């Protein structure tokens, strides 16, 4: 073992001698600042897109259509409240994500990541499906009032055009859930590997 230890130490020492001087810090700092700007921009854009969609929904559902039936009003309430709930969850998740800095001990970092991924899994999974169900229910509550002003054909077309993207969205959510689940399992395995 000592012989091996000496070979490895000698290899380590020799490889250390070959290392060229570090490149300039200017470029590195510029990259760090650029990456931070991009990340912030991405987070702002996500919230901005979701926020604008919510405002547009408010305009159409509350101002443009001016629903009269109680059932429709419940439907509008369900759609808006659950959409807002999903936006708030996304904002909370972004805040939580900022706490994973990678400066703690490895086990502590993995614990934080585990906590974050479990939260993402809940948001992407249960809460998104819950939002989707509530949103769909809200939409279906609007159908009786819509049927007063639309022909059967256009009503069927509207419902179909709601469900096709809905199915695609559900498949995308499932894909995201599986990805986050894989990440979570990987973190758990890595922690076991370090502790084992």
């Amino acid at each position, binding site marked *: *073992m000592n*012989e*091996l230890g000496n*070979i*490895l*130490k*000698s*290899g*380590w020492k*020799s*490889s*250390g001698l*070959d*290392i060229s001087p*570090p490149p300039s*810090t200017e470029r*590195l*700092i510029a*990259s*760090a600042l650029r*990456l*931070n700007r991009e990340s912030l921009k991405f987070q702002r854009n996500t919230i901005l897109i979701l926020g604008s969609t919510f405002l547009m929904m408010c305009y159409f559902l509350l101002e443009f259509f001016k629903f009269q039936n109680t059932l429709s009003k419940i439907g509008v309430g369900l759609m808006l409240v659950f959409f807002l709930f999903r936006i708030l969850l996304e904002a909370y998740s972004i805040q939580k994500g900022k706490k994973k*800095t*990678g*400066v*703690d*001990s*490895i*086990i*502590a*970092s*993995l614990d934080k990541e585990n906590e974050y991924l479990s939260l993402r899994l809940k948001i992407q999974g249960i809460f998104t499906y819950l939002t989707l169900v509530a949103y769909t229910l809200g939409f279906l509550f609007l159908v009786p009032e819509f049927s007063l002003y639309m022909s059967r054909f256009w009503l069927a077309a509207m419902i179909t055009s709601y469900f096709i993207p809905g199915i695609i969205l559900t498949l995308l959510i499932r894909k995201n859930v599986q*990805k986050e689940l*894989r*990440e979570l*399992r*990987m*973190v758990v*395995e*890595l922690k*076991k*590997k*370090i*502790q084992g």
Partner: protein
Amino acid sequence: MISGQKAQFEQLYQSQYRMVYQLCLGFMKGDSDQAKDLTQEAFIQVWNNLGKFRQDSSARTWIYRITVNACLNHLKKEKLHSEKLGEAIRGQVTTEEIKLTEQDPVKALYEAMAGLSEVDRLVTGLLLEEVPQEEIATILGISDGNLRVKIYRIKLRLKKLINHE
């Protein structure tokens, strides 16, 4: 404020670059391009978290922690890309005997590193860098006893090299 931060970063960068790069190089089994990318990633994290650095641990320990985290993050990303979760962490430990064929000590080092799992490569790198065991345990967040067991297993694994010479 920024200029003070830059000066502090510059000092850390110049003094710790070699050891960060070498640890990444060991982790990457001698792939210098990937090691450079990983070193850059680690120093970007150092820059981003400079304000959070408390003097309760040495700068060296703090940077080692960031480097090991960066290496493991790289590993996670790589494994996610390959979509082979089952092999993700266990993958590197083969049951085959590893054989030291290289005479060049640097090549022999990376050949030996290639026979270890990613986590064991990091521990070996830290040991070769002569980081005290209690500091390694702090970096990993495990107990001293746990680390001793891990080192014992790494030595057993590496011993097979000698047996095959």
